[in-house]
């Protein structure tokens, strides 16, 4: 057990603290759901890129800082920004999912075309995965693409597509080999959201904004070269993406930041002349959450250490999404309760402006519910924990209509 930072990391820590002291006032607000980055956010992203706090391990030729990947460095950066309640850079699907995927398996041309623009925040991506009939069963995607005269011609529908209403590009999982078994019939395409034949219909959510969309494809033409890896390799590429998503661990910064914000809020908010932090019911909830956050931070330190040692953390990693979203929700719940009636006036400033604090908390509180559902709903997570983590048997298979040629007994 050694929680001390080596000199190298202490130096990095000192460097970031100095950076935050000088530039921190320019940071956009943390939290509040997902929007197209405004000018303030883009400027901040540029500053972070120049200092190597985002795009740190991305090669210089693709717009990054070209450093060797180091989970400890990443953890030091995340924890310093979290402690200072400073925006740590864009974490949209282009940055966190597409870029690492292209860097691993994309062509030179694809890397040159998309990586730099994406990490600057100039190219916003959306992920074309879920379909109306296939939410949790991703490999059953039915949107199809046929190759005709050097173009993929895409037809079908996607749903729950975050950010599609303002995205520039989409990475799309679609069926190109209808005669092959389910997992082998998919391909992964990169397409412009401005292509003719794309119809985006924003789905207004409970936050009052349109975080999701339905996207309809009618004979949408995508140049043949826009395929990643190759025909029938879509499931493989999607799993490369997923692997990178899973590697983003050891980061308890969101719950840490929220706890710090809550402590400040409960100290500052007085009812009948007594700060909420000294009122037993509020204080008890805060204390319980503080205990949970201490446990969660320690758990993440453990995962971080194992990742640095190249150990697969198994069930310890599988609990992160379920446990983390639930803890996040309990924290935002206390925040909206501390805001109380005074926090009920709710006017979102729209897609490209900063909301007031109460609106931001209320959006986070609602958005947290979305996070429990998206990216593999929490009930799916419990299946994963039970079946892969604890080796419990699966539900017996129910007879369902399988797509033609799919292998029996496999479900995504």
């Amino acid at each position, binding site marked *: 057990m050694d929680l001390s930072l080596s000199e190298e990391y202490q130096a990095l820590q000192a460097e970031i603290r100095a950076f935050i002291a000088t530039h921190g006032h320019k940071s956009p607000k943390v939290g509040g759901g997902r929007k197209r980055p405004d000018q303030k956010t883009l400027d901040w992203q540029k500053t972070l890129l120049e200092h190597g706090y985002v795009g740190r391990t991305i090669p210089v030729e693709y717009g990054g800082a070209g450093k060797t990947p180091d989970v400890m460095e990443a953890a030091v950066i995340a924890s310093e920004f979290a402690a200072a309640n400073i925006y740590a850079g864009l974490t949209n699907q282009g940055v966190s999912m597409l870029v690492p995927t292209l860097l691993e398996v994309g062509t030179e041309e694809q890397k040159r075309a998309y990586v730099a623009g994406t990490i600057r925040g100039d190219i916003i991506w959306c992920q074309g995965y879920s379909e109306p009939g296939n939410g949790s069963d991703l490999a059953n995607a039915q949107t199809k693409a046929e190759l005709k005269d050097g173009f993929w011609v895409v037809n079908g529908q996607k749903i729950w597509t975050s950010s599609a209403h303002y995205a520039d590009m989409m990475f799309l999982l679609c069926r190109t080999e209808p005669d092959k078994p389910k997992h082998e019939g998919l391909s992964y395409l990169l397409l412009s959201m401005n292509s003719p034949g794309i119809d985006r219909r924003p789905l207004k959510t409970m936050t009052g904004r349109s975080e999701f969309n339905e996207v309809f494809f009618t004979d949408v033409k995508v140049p043949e070269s826009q395929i990643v890896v190759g025909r029938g390799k879509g499931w493989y590429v999607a799993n490369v993406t997923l692997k990178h998503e899973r590697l983003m661990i050891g980061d308890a910064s969101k719950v840490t930041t929220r706890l710090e914000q809550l402590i400040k809020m409960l100290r500052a908010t007085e009812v009948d002349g007594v700060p909420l932090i000294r009122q037993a019911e509020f204080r008890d909830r805060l204390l319980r959450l503080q205990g*949970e956050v201490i446990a969660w*931070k320690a758990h993440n330190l*453990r995962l971080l250490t194992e990742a640095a040692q190249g150990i697969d953390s198994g069930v310890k990693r599988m609990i992160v999404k379920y446990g983390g979203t639930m803890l996040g929700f309990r924290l935002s719940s206390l925040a909206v309760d501390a805001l109380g009636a005074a926090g009920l006036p709710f006017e979102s400033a729209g897609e490209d402006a900063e909301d007031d604090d109460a609106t931001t908390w209320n959006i986070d509180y609602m958005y947290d519910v979305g996070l429990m559902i998206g990216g593999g709903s929490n009930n799916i997570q419990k299946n994963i924990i039970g079946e892969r983590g604890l080796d419990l048997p699966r539900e017996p298979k129910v007879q369902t209509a399988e797509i033609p040629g799919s292998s029996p007994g496999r479900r995504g």
Partner: protein
Amino acid sequence: MEFGLSLEQRQFDDSLRDFLKDRLPMERLRALAEPGGGYDEALWTGLAELGLHGLIVPERFGGAGLGVLDAAVAAEGLGYAAAPVPFTGTTVMAPLAFMNSATETQQDEYLPLVAAGEARIAVGFAGLAGQTGAASVTLDGSRLSGTIGGVMDAGAATHLLIYLRDGTAALVEAGAAGLSTVPHRSLDRTRPLTDVSFNATPAERLAAANDKLAAARRVLDAGRVVLAADTLGAAQTMLDRAVAFAKERVQFGRVIGSFQGVKYMLADCVTTLEPCRGMVWYAAHAQDAMPDEARLTACHAKAHVADVAREVARMTTETHGGMGFTDLLGLHYWFKRIGFNRQVLGGPERCREEAAELQGWTLHG
């Protein structure tokens, strides 16, 4: 940075678990639990071979000179086996009390005996810990008077070390004049609680600490972390057994672990319990190396792990169905161990209250 157990700690953990698995099968546990004395000579002596007694006693006194983290690793193993040994008091709090508060002469006299397993010193808090029950003891010169209820790990104690409300520490020999000890079998038959009364009983002060209250709290904090570790081990046993049972038990033509109702309970157990392990390690390491975080993390670990374990104990018992409720499976030894650990040295509400005071969050803070 490396957050995890060292190779030596993992090896020690393995050998302790192997030893307990071999020496404490269910029928042996039942036999030891019935009298409820919380002490078994053979087990205690056997643990000496693993170096358990002198675990945190400094090397110059014949111990291994290790820390609270090592004690927490051992406690998790002991909790896993529901071992009836006076570990928290005798092996952790007592030597820490001497290291924090005794003179060099007193340390010379007692710590080698502790390391050898010959002195088994129970530690009682008359106040400070927030335990319910009698807690009124006074020290007049070198004479102790009053009563203290529910002292843990006093089943076969050779000495009692009593902390007064102000942090004063007084050592009494078993059999001293005016000392009366009434052991009670407790809910957890593997560990009794002892009511102690003093009537002008001769006592020896441990008075070398600069700040006796702070020194007393360090001992209390370490005890709380070790109890949290023990609880973690006990809850892990229950979870492991429930998972194994869910893979074997068939109802409606299916093993019950394939039902989402059962699967989701067990997923909830692991999701809440696994982070407790990191928490216990962190809090234990804080006792050894991060004094600024030691109190807060000890209070939170004692409280949080107790709350998580209560739910794990409930859900894993439910997983076993009617059998879980019977005496036959013996699952209740761990259920009760979790219940015992929760209440001694201050329950979750008390521990969180102390955490609040520490941060100035109370009305008077």
